[in-house]
């Protein structure tokens, strides 16, 4: 599979979208931090107290940088869907099948390359958000002890959310056999997931916490910082749910892809 992965990464590397993604991963955090800074200057940050957490600190900005419905979070599924489905629509996927590559390997190679792309860009995006954030704001609370654990939880859960999204992207792109529907369905799915989770969490996280078993992205950076007490159960349940749903997508995806008539 190593050679397939190299080939898929070569395609991604040669694509203009990769270059655009790298620019976005640097430019968008700068824009967002400057926007937060401007809003903070214009309005009194106490006015935003109704949210239940302070908006104008690096902690909040960093946690929300992993959101599926924000900026780069919304762009990543589109780009990775394009990478995967172009292999199908260009017919280059046929070249792999003809020379004897198994469909399981082809699927896994696409999945891994989509994961690597998503994780690289979202990590850069979060890192630059933190970097630029610290120029204008502080972390928000003292960054030690439990807060460090919370930071690690945000990074792990946030990153795994994009691993899960990569599994959705790969699934839809390879099973639907077409670029446009793959992009539309991936984006719709991520939007619905993201918006539903955010709304529910803002209303009352505790009452809906069992939704984590149905919605793998339910436990995310925002839910981690909303709760005043660090919640290990929430983290591990979120983690398990993400891993389980990613595995499930992959198994179902490979099964369907193996039976698929390839264009």
């Amino acid at each position, binding site marked *: 599979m190593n*050679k*397939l992965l*190299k*080939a898929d990464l*070569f*395609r991604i590397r*040669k*694509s*203009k979208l990769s270059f655009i993604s790298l620019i976005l991963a640097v430019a968008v955090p700068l824009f967002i931090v400057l926007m937060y800074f401007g809003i903070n200057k214009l309005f009194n940050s106490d006015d935003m107290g109704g949210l239940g957490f302070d908006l104008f600190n690096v902690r909040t900005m960093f946690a929300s940088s992993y959101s599926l419905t924000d900026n780069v979070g919304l762009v990543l599924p589109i780009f990775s869907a394009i990478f995967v489905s*172009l292999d199908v629509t*260009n*017919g*280059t*996927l*046929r*070249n*792999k*099948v*003809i*020379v*004897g*590559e*198994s469909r399981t390997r082809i699927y896994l190679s696409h999945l891994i390359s989509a994961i690597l792309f998503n994780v690289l860009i979202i990590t850069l995006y979060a890192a630059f958000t933190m970097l630029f954030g610290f120029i204008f704001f502080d972390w928000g609370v003292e960054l030690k002890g439990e807060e460090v654990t919370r930071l690690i939880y945000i990074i792990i859960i946030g990153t795994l959310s994009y691993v899960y999204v990569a599994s959705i992207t790969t699934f839809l792109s390879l099973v639907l056999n077409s670029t446009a529907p793959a992009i539309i369905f991936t984006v719709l799915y991520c939007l619905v997931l993201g918006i539903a989770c955010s709304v529910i969490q803002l209303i009352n996280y505790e009452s809906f916490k069992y939704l984590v078993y149905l919605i793998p992205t339910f436990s995310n950076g925002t839910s981690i910082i909303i709760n005043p007490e660090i919640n290990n159960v929430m983290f591990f349940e979120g983690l398990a749910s993400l891993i389980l749903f990613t595995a499930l997508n992959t198994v179902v995806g490979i099964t369907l892809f193996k*039976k698929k*008539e*390839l264009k």
Partner: protein
Amino acid sequence: MEKSYVLETYNLTKKYKDLYAVSGVNMHIEKGDIYGFVGENGAGKTTIIRLVTGLTLPTSGSYALFGKKSDSKEINEEKRKMSGIVEAVSINRTMNALENLKLQCLITKTNKTDEELIDLIKLVGLNYEEIKNKKASNFSLGMRQRLGLAIAMVSNPEFILLDEPMNGLDPQGFIDVREIILKLSKKGVTFLISSHILAELDKICNKIGFISHGKLLEEITIEDLHNKSRKKVVITLNEVESLKDLLVEKMGIKDYEIDNDKLSIYDTLDINEVMSVLVNNKVNINSINEVEDTIEDYYINLVMRGQHE
């Protein structure tokens, strides 16, 4: 001694709902063969190629590649010796020609230097200097076809499947592709070629498989095909009906066809005898030739015979 085949199919069948796209096909391709696939649109040529390449799964039946059965574990290993163009050319349109070949090198784990890849680009008739900075999306259909051929050749395969390789090519392209195929064939590469350009198949193939409505009607070597082909005398003139009546009366012709201003006589005739009948009866003709059935004639005849049976 039992023949060893590069490709052998056993009752290969593909059914879509109620339609048999391919029905019980048993075909045999030997090493070094240039096997031409002849059939009408929708006859099942591409479906067979898709089945053999694994792009589509058969409803029933199987095949063996280099002696390994399609359900064996070693089949993928054998497929690595294969490559091809199936339906449309498979190229990454956002990449240039060299990058496309590099991508295929990665997929097939082929070690080739840039110089070797550039030589391959030149071999298929692409002007490297002109296209080196051009994305494949800006290529003409013929250029894409040539690049597709280069991609198919990059891993030095032993068996190449080409589905309509002449599509979009200009006359020079026909000659180039023909020369490449013949050159590789001399090196022992086996080909399965499906094409609508039957005259071209006649020039390069040593074996032909005739297919109609999903069924393989006949597999025949070009040599046998020419031996079996009917000879005919073709006369073109304006008054074709009256000439037919004359030849029926004077020479007793029975097996003939009329197509506009053309009278084709399949009875064994001496062309000189025909000409003396024409001269004696003062018949003005445009031309008279003694010709052999083409692959197309042979195919039509085969299909007609199949329909009558």
